[in-house]
């Protein structure tokens, strides 16, 4: 009896841990400066900015040391790191655009986005502060 309870408890713990981890991994906030005129954006608009199709805003990227980057591109654009790099290689080596600046930490992204009303970035949702506003949540 106690053996069954233990197993059930363990299974519950695993499910809870996986659920919690998934919940945390889902929490990416797409942010602009608090001074920006943008209030909400669609994932299509964000995707076009981050794939260089639109130059409406200046995208700021996270370095691939951050956990958010792969998830962001996968959810926003349906593309993996190599596909995104290939797309930017087309733009960079034809002189059409320069690749987004890559920053190492949420703090650096927040600082850069806060400082430029035309910038857009993405950070862990829990890192968001009053210097920026959230225009989209990546679920």
């Amino acid at each position: 009896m106690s053996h069954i309870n233990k197993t059930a408890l363990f299974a519950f713990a695993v499910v809870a841990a996986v659920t919690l981890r998934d919940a945390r991994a889902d929490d990416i906030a797409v942010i602009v400066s608090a001074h920006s005129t943008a209030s909400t954006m669609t994932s299509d608009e964000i995707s076009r900015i981050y794939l260089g199709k639109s130059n409406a805003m200046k995208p700021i990227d996270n370095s691939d040391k951050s956990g958010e980057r792969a998830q962001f591109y996968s959810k926003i654009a349906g593309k993996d790191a190599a596909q995104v790099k290939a797309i930017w290689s087309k733009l960079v080596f034809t002189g059409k655009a320069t690749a987004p600046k890559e920053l190492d930490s949420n703090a650096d992204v927040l600082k850069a986005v806060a400082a430029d009303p035309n910038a857009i970035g993405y950070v862990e949702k829990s890192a968001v502060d009053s210097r920026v506003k959230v225009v989209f949540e990546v679920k």
Partner: protein
Amino acid sequence: MPSAKSILVTGALILCTSAAEAADFSLSDMFQLHGYGTLGVAHSNQDQADVIGAPNQNPGAGYSSAWTPNLDTKLGLQLDTKFTDRLTAVVQVISQNRYDNSYTGKPIHRYVPSVQWANLKWQITDDISFRAGRMVLPLMMFSEFRDVGYANTLVRPPIEMYGIVPFSTNDGADLTWHHTFGSVTNSLVLFDGGASLRQPGLTLESHQKGITDTVEVGSWTVRAAYMRSPIKTTTHVFDNSFYTNFIDAAGSLPNNQGDAAAAAAQDLYNRYQTTHWVPIDHYDLGAVYDPGRWFAMAELYEDRNPGILGHVHSQWVAAGFRYKTVTPYVMYAHVSTSFPYEAGIPLGGLPAPLAAYGGGINGLIGVLQNVLNANERQLAFGVRWDFMKNLDFKAEYAHLQAGYGSTGDFQNAQPGFTPGSGADLISFTVDFVF
């Protein structure tokens, strides 16, 4: 004891550093160095001619060497300079096996770097930009980044289409209008400029002006282009006098009996002798559908010239499927050339020696049409594997088949090469970007 020179250099560095700090600006904001390249090896089983991977490439794989790095190996370096947010410059230099402008007559100089891009860009408004200098000719869908292996799924774009136009650059200017309408992005480019090309035994000049329009919506990219490019050769096989001597002689016959022949010869001269500008119209239409897990693409190209180059038609399609880091693909390409029927110079009523001369010109037209009749198809199966960050590996098997009576896109064809023959081509490449 530091030398005066080292003091001067140190002083200049301190000045620059403090100036940069004062302006809250760093060299890394102003300059960015990027690069790309491919290490490749290819094998062809056709030992009587070479398969090439791009126009102006020589030698290729097959007759010259069964295994060769010369089809795909290249290195490109690019320096981006940002003077202000609105004024930028790009310089890109590439080293590869091309004759282009770097030809010096010595095969050892094949990999001499040539300038692919060198222009100043003025971003006039958020939507409108103007560039002046050297740009890559934006004729076909993948023309501008065909050399960047990492940016392409296939080993290389098909020679059947991307080998038709020998010019790859445009020295001049372009104007771009890039605008987003709701969920549709439209990019319109007007360009005007020229290029020249030196190859063994041939110097070509081209004026190039045209328009391209690219529409991106969702997973679709659709692109159309038109270009008018008069070309002229400054070296040529037959001197102008080959035609003009006949025209003069026929035109001076009594009773206007040679006038029809002289007019016909003049017409052939106008359309088949390229020592003066000969017009070519180019049309291109391409589409890519790429929702992420798989992709499909197709492109149609046609160019029209009233004489020596005839009408060239080319089509290709490709599709692939992405499974994690591995992307198998298949590609089919085709090119054909058609020439108008030429009645030639009417020889009736001409004195015998002049009739023989006119017959020689008629014969030459037939030979030219035959030599320039490129007809080929290619079927390729390949795979791209993104095995590491900024690196991919590709392997491809292709069969290239020249059309009936044609040498297709084969180069260095030997007397033992039968027109209409084919080749199996195996290619391996590693592409990188940094």
